[in-house]
């Protein structure tokens, strides 16, 4: 079970290992706030959809399992979207269309089909948590690099109350050298490529160790 959970981080990290859910992770990873907000939303939807899919796996007819999963996932995403809209309007505005697009995020349907439909409720929930945190972790890495390179600092505000700054700093000496390229999609791809290469090396190493 612990292995399942840990797999989500490096070996089967959904973004850097399985290359799933890249559209949203490249688009919204411009700031730490977006990354944490999006990561939390995806994790919630992922855990809930895994639990529900796993709970109804025995009564779901095989022929229509994908439509059933999609109905379940779409309702969960709509619920999360409405809650975010009501309680975190700033996050809702900055995530924009990508919040609703969690429906078509392949990590969620992928885990429902590959894991939750074959495993018990508890291990599906843990798989959802692991994958969700893996996705959040990947978003965090990309967004920290991008936010730092574009603003020479990092900041994180309370999503429930935008006036409450949790932490914020800028290195003034670096401010003249910010690279605005990294707030554009090119920067997202560059950052992503470097991390993907790093994760490939880490995977290679751990595979070799296991072989020995």
């Amino acid at each position, binding site marked *: 079970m612990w292995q399942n959970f840990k797999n989500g981080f490096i070996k089967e990290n959904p973004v850097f290992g399985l290359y799933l859910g890249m559209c949203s992770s490249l688009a919204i990873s411009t700031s730490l706030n977006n990354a944490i907000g999006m990561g939390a939303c995806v994790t919630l939807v992922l855990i809930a959809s895994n639990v529900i899919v796993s709970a109804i796996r025995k009564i779901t007819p095989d022929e229509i399992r994908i439509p059933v999963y999609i109905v379940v996932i779409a309702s969960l995403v709509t619920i999360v979207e409405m*809650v975010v809209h009501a309680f975190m309007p700033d996050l809702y505005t900055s995530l924009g*269309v990508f919040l609703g697009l969690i429906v078509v995020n392949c990590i969620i349907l992928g885990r429902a089909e590959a894991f939750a439909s074959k495993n018990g409720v508890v291990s599906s929930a843990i798989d959802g948590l692991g994958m969700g945190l893996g996705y959040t972790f990947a978003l965090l890495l990309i967004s920290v690099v991008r936010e730092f390179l574009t603003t020479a600092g990092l900041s994180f505000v309370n999503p429930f109350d935008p006036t409450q700054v949790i932490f914020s700093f800028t290195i003034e000496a670096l401010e003249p050298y910010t690279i605005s390229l990294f707030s554009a999609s090119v920067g997202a791809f560059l950052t992503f490529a470097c991390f993907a290469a790093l994760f490939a090396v880490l995977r290679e190493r751990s595979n070799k160790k296991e072989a020995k």
Partner: protein
Amino acid sequence: MKKALQLVLFLGIIATISGISVGYVNSITEPIIQDNLLASEITNLEAMYPGAEFTALEVSDDSGYVQGAYEVVGEGYAVKVQTTGYNSSTPIIALVGFDSEGTITGLMAIQQQETDGFGTKCFEDANIDTLYVGKALGETVDLLSGATVTSTAIQNAITAAQTVVAELVG
């Protein structure tokens, strides 16, 4: 045949349960979202006209674009419009400012999720100044090339707002 019915029934049950739960959450969040929008409207009106006083006006509008109108005491009018641009799931909501003669003085988006770099150009300050500001009543505002869908939507909304303001100016 029996199998098909079974499948339809199962999917129907799932869809019903989902529908009920989404509806339930919506009934909780909808008033909060509305409250937030109203609160942000006051903030927006104040952002557009700092220090001004506002009174809400009753207006009639057949076009469906105008959501509300406010008199800005001593300045003119502000009209809240809603229109659908390129993003059909999230409409554009904006405030259009008019002076007491009915000439457009500004436009401010309250909510928009148009395509970044294309539709969003319509909401940039420089473009707002050239496209909309200074147009008197009866003049149609210009479109923006590269953002035709979004700027057409705004054009329709502004035309509707101008009709409403024309009645107010008298």
